[in-house]
C-alpha cells in the first residue's frame, strides 16, 4: 500500500514537471506569436533559428517525463490492486493511456514520414516539364514536332 502511494507520488511529481513544461511551452509560443506575428514586427534571425529546436526539446522532455510518470502510476496501481481489487481499474486505465500515447506518436510519425517522402518525390521523381522533354529528345537525336530539328551533334556529343 505504502509502496503504491509512494510510486503514485513520484508519478505525480514527474507529471507536474511535465505539465509545467507544457504550460511554459504554450506561454512561450503565444508570447512570440503575439509579439512578432500579430504586430507584424520582424523576428530576429537568432530567435527564428532558436524557437523550433527549443520548443521541440521542451516537447520531447515533456513526453519522456509523462511516459515515466505513467509507468510510475502503473506500478503504483499494481501495488494498490493488492490492497483492493477494485483499484485494478487504474492499472487498466494507465495501460490504455500508454497505448494511446504510443499510437498517437506512431500516427504522427507515419504522417511526417509520408509528408517527407512526398516532398522527396517532388524533387526527384517529378514528371518532366516540356523543357526537360525537349532536352532529352535532343540528346537522343529525336525530332520533336513543333520544336524544330534537334541540334546536330559530333562524335564527342557536343552540338555542332
Amino acid at each position, binding site marked *: 500500500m505504502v509502496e503504491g502511494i509512494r510510486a503514485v507520488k513520484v508519478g505525480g511529481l514527474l507529471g507536474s514537471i511535465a505539465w509545467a513544461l507544457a504550460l511554459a511551452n504554450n506561454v512561450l509560443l503565444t508570447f512570440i506569436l503575439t509579439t512578432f506575428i500579430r504586430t507584424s514586427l520582424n523576428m530576429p534571425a537568432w530567435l527564428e533559428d532558436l524557437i523550433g529546436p527549443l520548443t521541440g526539446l521542451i516537447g520531447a522532455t515533456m513526453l519522456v517525463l509523462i511516459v515515466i510518470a505513467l509507468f510510475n502510476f502503473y506500478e503504483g496501481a499494481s501495488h494498490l490492486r493488492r490492497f*483492493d481489487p477494485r483499484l485494478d481499474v487504474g492499472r487498466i486505465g494507465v495501460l490504455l493511456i500508454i497505448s494511446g500515447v504510443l499510437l498517437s506518436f506512431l500516427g504522427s510519425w507515419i504522417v511526417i514520414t509520408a509528408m517527407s517522402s512526398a516532398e522527396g518525390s517532388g524533387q526527384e521523381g517529378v514528371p518532366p516539364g516540356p523543357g526537360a522533354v525537349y532536352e532529352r529528345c535532343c540528346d537522343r537525336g529525336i525530332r520533336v514536332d513543333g520544336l524544330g530539328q534537334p541540334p546536330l551533334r559530333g562524335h564527342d556529343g557536343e552540338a555542332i
Partner: protein
Amino acid sequence: MVLGSLLFAVMMVRLSREGLGKGYGIGGLLYLAREVLRTLTILGLMVILSADVISFLECILGLILMLLIYWSSEDFLKELHSEGAPVEVVKPVMR
C-alpha cells in the same frame, strides 16, 4: 487514451472514498473534467473557446491535478508515518 484517463480518474475517486485524502477525489473530478473538455474538442463541439484557450486550459488542469496527486500522496504518507495517525487513515492499510 480518453477511456484510460477516465478509468484512472475512477481509481482516484475510489482512493478518495477509501479515506486516503480528499485531494484524490478532487484530482479525479478534475481529470474527468479535462477528459470531457478533450472529448468535446476532438468531436469539434467546443466552439465557444478557441484552440489557444483550450490548450492553456488543458495544461493548467493537468498541472493542478498532478500537483493534487503529489500533495495528497505526500500528506497520506506523512500521516501514516506520524505516531498519531487517525484511525480512518490507517484502517484501509490494515484491511
